[in-house]
């Protein structure tokens, strides 16, 4: 088990959004204010850890023919639990994220990690994988939110700071509305993927030089 490698994979080299291109729907749709990004990221992280742990613990019991059905039941269960808890304790967030919380059920990150990692590795490693992949997802969402909110609405920290309005950094009228719309999501994501690829290549080069 290599914790450092797992951490780097979740954060950068196998980042669920930027490299594996999983969970695009939520990534593009909800990254319009910081509050949404953090809330969605944390919800997915919690569900990912729970489902990874349970699936990993049951990996020898679940027959392979029905594994997808079993995974979906487990994931859907945890998603509904988080949905109910959010509705009860964080109603504002639950309202903002709306339909995207129930949709985590079909978020490929969770099923993807269940299939690719949790079904083949131990409980602790799977929990860490869930945590790191979740952190990678959350950080990507936060970066997307900050960029899109700044360019699209001219604010920072919408939904949390300054009574929900966010701190105004650009004057009204200057920000391009398009950035908080789908087109802005695709643009931001494209640039982020390009940037992360550049970083990964640079790190690989450094590693090779160090190995020489």
């Amino acid at each position: 088990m290599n914790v450092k490698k797992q951490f780097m994979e979740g954060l950068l080299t196998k980042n669920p959004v930027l490299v594996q291109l999983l969970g695009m729907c939520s990534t593009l749709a909800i990254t319009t204010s910081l509050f949404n990004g953090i809330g969605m990221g944390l919800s997915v992280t919690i569900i990912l850890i729970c489902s990874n742990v349970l699936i990993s613990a049951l990996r020898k019991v679940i027959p392979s023919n029905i594994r997808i059905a079993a995974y979906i039941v487990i994931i859907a269960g945890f998603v509904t639990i988080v949905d109910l808890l959010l509705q009860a304790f964080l109603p504002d967030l639950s309202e903002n994220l709306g339909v995207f919380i129930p949709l985590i059920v079909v978020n490929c990150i969770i099923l993807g990690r269940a299939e690719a990692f949790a079904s083949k590795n131990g409980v602790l490693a799977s929990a860490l994988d869930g945590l790191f992949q979740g952190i990678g997802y959350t950080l990507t969402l936060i970066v997307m939110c900050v960029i899109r909110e700044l360019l699209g609405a001219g604010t920072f920290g919408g939904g949390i700071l300054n009574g929900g309005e966010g701190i105004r950094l650009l004057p009204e009228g200057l920000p391009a509305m398009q950035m908080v719309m789908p087109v802005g999501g695709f643009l931001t994501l494209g640039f982020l993927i390009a940037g992360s690829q550049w970083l990964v290549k640079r790190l690989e080069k450094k590693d090779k030089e160090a190995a020489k």
Partner: protein
Amino acid sequence: MKKESTFGYILRLSLTLLIITGVMALLLGSVNALTKDRIDQINAQKARDALAAVLPDAASAQEKTDFSDPTGQISQIYESETGYAIQLTVAGFGGDVDMMVGVSKTGEVLGVSIISHTETAGLGAVAAAKTSNGQAFRDQFVGMSGTLAVTKDGGQVDAISSATITSRAVTEGVNIALAWVAQNG
């Protein structure tokens, strides 16, 4: 190891899935039992807030128990000195939009408030958001009367950008409330 018969294999598959489903159902049931009261309370509070937002004298409003509603979309009507608060459901972009419309006795909109919805975050959800553009969208209805439509359909209601369907739904809700008051008020 003894070879498993087809029957035994199918039984093993079904039983495993049954147990997993059962355990998850149990978990869900307990979380539901824990959170149900709180969620109901929050929804009731939202309905009260919505009432206060659309009727100036909401405290004295009385619920009307019998009313005729040909559309079948009105769920509750409250009457006060100044007017009516009508709670109704319309179909939005992502599902039902549960909203409250205040209408004066003279047939003008006093306020619009959205209780619950499943519209797209950042787009249709603006209609219900506490932000300035959400507030502006709902406030523009105040004082309007007759039959309304969004500007795209030749009306006077400014739709939320990229959320025409949600805006149409809210406008339709306001129309239902206005029509009810025009007939019964």
